[in-house]
């Protein structure tokens, strides 16, 4: 019986698993996006000496659900002068493309919907399609603020895709493959995360990815103090929620690309150093710690229902801990039975998934940190930064990495030395560029020049 189940599972696996993964992602992603918003509000609050959401659930833990319900129940408004069809279609387009991009992302060694051989190209291409939804939505609203927001968004995305793309090319030179899974495996084989091989590339990608996802300090398209809400000014209720979901999905996507390309994907730190093998126990220990802490906090909640929710949260963490711990203890407890073997075989997938998510969240935390620290760039300054600094540097970076690889492979320099040399060259050129750029800046004419040239063309 057990054998039959297992064989049938094996036979269905090629079709079943991607489907399960896809359904999981579509079902869980809105929840995750909601909790990223909660995390953002909490991080913001603590940076700003306040508490943030505290009312719905203990420490606001149920706030995302309350928000989602509120958005679903809101009146559905389409402005009278809007283009109804496009207005209706635009948010769907944005959210679909954002979710589609998740298909090729490797969340763990086994957790990937489709391992495309051009995975990276697919993700970058699909996620930049989302701009259509933004531009169409801004245009269809028939409002000046929306239009300006959409215009800004289009210009910004085009500019920063270029720089971000070139930064990706830098990492691709090391990997030699577009398959996201192989890129991670390459980092495992080479024994180095590409962030250390191409730090300048990572930095460029970081800046470009903030700009691509329209987040502060590059949140021009929706700069609330200037354009009210940019392209989503006229949107409300569930359509607005779709845009919001797309935005946070895109954040997850760019964080995933950065993690896969530069931060070693699902690899734990130093995967080959066996002295650090205890890091494999870290995920379970962390979850257990969180569970204990939640239990400890539970009696301190003011209301009975909040106490219960806190216990529930503790139970959830404990369950995670058990799941993470299961593969490691399975063979000890149940011996060499087939079930125990199967459970033990989950180990790399579970741990990989944990490390991948941890890195994603650290990257997103960095996004938030930057958002709450910096003022907003002005539109023309953003464009100047993109075209006059980031794009040249990203091209120089690609050439320098090529040079470094040539030094290593053709002339036989040690790899580390070659890359450090070329990185230094890139940094020098960057400093020179920044210096000349600074000299040019400050003249009032720049604003006029930028717009004037655009009008004459």
């Amino acid at each position, binding site marked *: 019986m057990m054998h039959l189940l297992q064989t049938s599972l094996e036979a269905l696996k090629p079709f079943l698993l991607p489907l399960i993964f896809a359904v999981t992602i579509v079902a869980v992603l809105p929840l995750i996006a909601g909790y990223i918003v909660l995390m953002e509000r909490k991080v913001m609050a603590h940076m700003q*000496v306040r508490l943030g959401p505290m009312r719905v659930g203990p420490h606001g833990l149920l706030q995302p659900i309350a928000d989602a319900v509120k958005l679903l129940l809101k009146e559905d408004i389409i402005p009278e002068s809007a283009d109804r069809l496009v207005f209706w279609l635009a948010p769907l387009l944005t959210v679909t493309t954002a979710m589609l991009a998740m298909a090729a992302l490797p969340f763990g060694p086994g957790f990937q919907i489709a391992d495309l051989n051009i995975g990276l190209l697919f993700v970058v291409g699909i996620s930049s399609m989302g701009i259509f939804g933004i531009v169409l939505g801004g245009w269809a609203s028939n409002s000046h603020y929306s239009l*300006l927001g959409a215009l800004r968004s289009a210009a910004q995305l085009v500019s920063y895709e270029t720089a971000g793309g070139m930064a990706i090319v830098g990492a691709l030179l090391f990997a030699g493959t577009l398959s996201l899974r192989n890129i991670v495996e390459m980092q495992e084989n080479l024994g180095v995360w590409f962030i250390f091989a191409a730090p300048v590339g990572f930095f460029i990608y970081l800046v470009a990815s903030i700009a691509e996802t329209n987040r502060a300090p590059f949140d*021009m398209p929706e700069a609330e103090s200037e354009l*009210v809400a940019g392209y989503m000014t006229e949107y409300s209720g569930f359509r607005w929620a779709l845009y919001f979901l797309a935005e946070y999905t895109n954040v997850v996507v760019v964080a995933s690309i950065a993690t896969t390309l530069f931060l070693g994907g699902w690899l734990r730190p130093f995967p080959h150093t066996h002295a650090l093998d205890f890091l494999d126990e870290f995920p379970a220990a962390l979850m257990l710690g969180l569970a204990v802490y939640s239990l400890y906090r539970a009696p301190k909640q003011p209301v009975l229902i909040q106490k219960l929710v806190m216990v529930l949260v503790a139970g959830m963490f404990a369950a995670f801990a058990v799941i993470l711990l299961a593969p490691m203890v399975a063979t000890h407890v149940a011996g060499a039975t087939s079930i125990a073997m199967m459970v033990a075989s989950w180990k790399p997938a579970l741990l990989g998934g944990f490390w991948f998510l941890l890195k994603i969240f650290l990257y997103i935390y960095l996004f938030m940190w930057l958002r*709450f620290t*910096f*003022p*907003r760039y002005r539109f023309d300054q953003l464009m100047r930064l993109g075209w006059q600094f980031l794009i040249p540097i990203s091209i120089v970076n690609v050439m320098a990495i090529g040079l470094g690889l040539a030094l290593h492979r053709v002339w036989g320099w040690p790899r580390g030395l070659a890359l450090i040399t070329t990185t230094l060259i890139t940094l020098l050129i960057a400093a020179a560029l920044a210096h000349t750029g600074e000299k040019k800046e400050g003249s009032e004419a720049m*604003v006029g020049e930028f717009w004037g040239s655009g*009008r004459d063309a």
Partner: protein
Amino acid sequence: MADPRIPAPANVETTVLGADEIILNMGPQHPSTHGVLRVKLRLDGEKVVGSECVIGYLHRGVEKIAEHRTYTQFAPYVDRMDYVAAVSNGLGYCEAVEKLLGAEAPPRARVVRTILTELQRIASHLFWLGTHALDIGALTPLFYCLREREEILKIFEHYCGARLTTHAFRIGGLQYETYDGFERDVVQFCEPFDKRVDDYEALLTSNRIWLARTKGIGVLSAKDAIDYGASGPVIRGSGVKWDIRKAMPYAAYSDYEFEIPTGENGDTFDRYMVRLEEMRQSRKICLQAVAKIPAGPIMARIGKVLKPPPGEVYHAIEAPKGELGYYIVSDGTTQPYRVRIRPPSLINLEAFDKMVRGHLIADVVAIIGTLDIVLGEVDR
């Protein structure tokens, strides 16, 4: 039909729009017009080629109300003009009526007035700094600023029971004696405040983006500033050393040492630096004043019913936003014949069009912020 008595708007809609121009209506419901200011912007792309401020959305007829109230009854109304700096408004009105009466507040009242007004200046500038930074996209300084402002509001609350529209002073002196521990509270706030201002500077002044967003934005030359009748930090940012606390000292300002900070270029950054420095100077004044508050009565003998002799008086003080003037005409009855208020926000706002032309939309909000307007005072 347009009313022929009202002149047509100056520059936004009178000329025909170019093919690539649009008119953007900013406000009165807009997150960063600081209340209900409405700005019509004529845009070429995102570049502003013309602008027009539409005001009056918060008009409450404060000046007319004055004609139907006694001098004493009208005092609380002035708090509602610049509601971010209510204490300063009250000081200006009380001193103007005292001038009309030929009376003078006793020394103790004058010193306490000075302390409270300077605290109010700090509070007003803190609120300005936070919202200005928020307009330019820096979210965090607002909450640090509000944290410090809260300390000041607590002092007000202890003193007179109100936090915002305080009505702290009375004509002829003070209604309330200072509470026990007033001096301690003021010192406790002022001592660490210098470091707090340093913190804001660390967040903003050395930030590249902040510099790029404020330097060279909304330039107002010294000559223009004088021509427009600008006052307060706006004129000082343009390099004109004009401060009524020094030029025509009132309350107890002549007793204290403080500097008048000025800028050089008259841009948003200079006005920002001027206001930061003013906060430091206000702190200095507070510390000097609180060290020796003279003993004595807090009210002058002016009688219960105020009947100023017929005549007129103009009295101006240096409110946080600039020169706040009261022009009061008395006909010898218990009610003023006319009260005309010179609100600094309104006069400073006149320079808006001049400052905003040629800049982008993002700079428009920066310039509205740097003028530090309060619509309650603009519209009255």
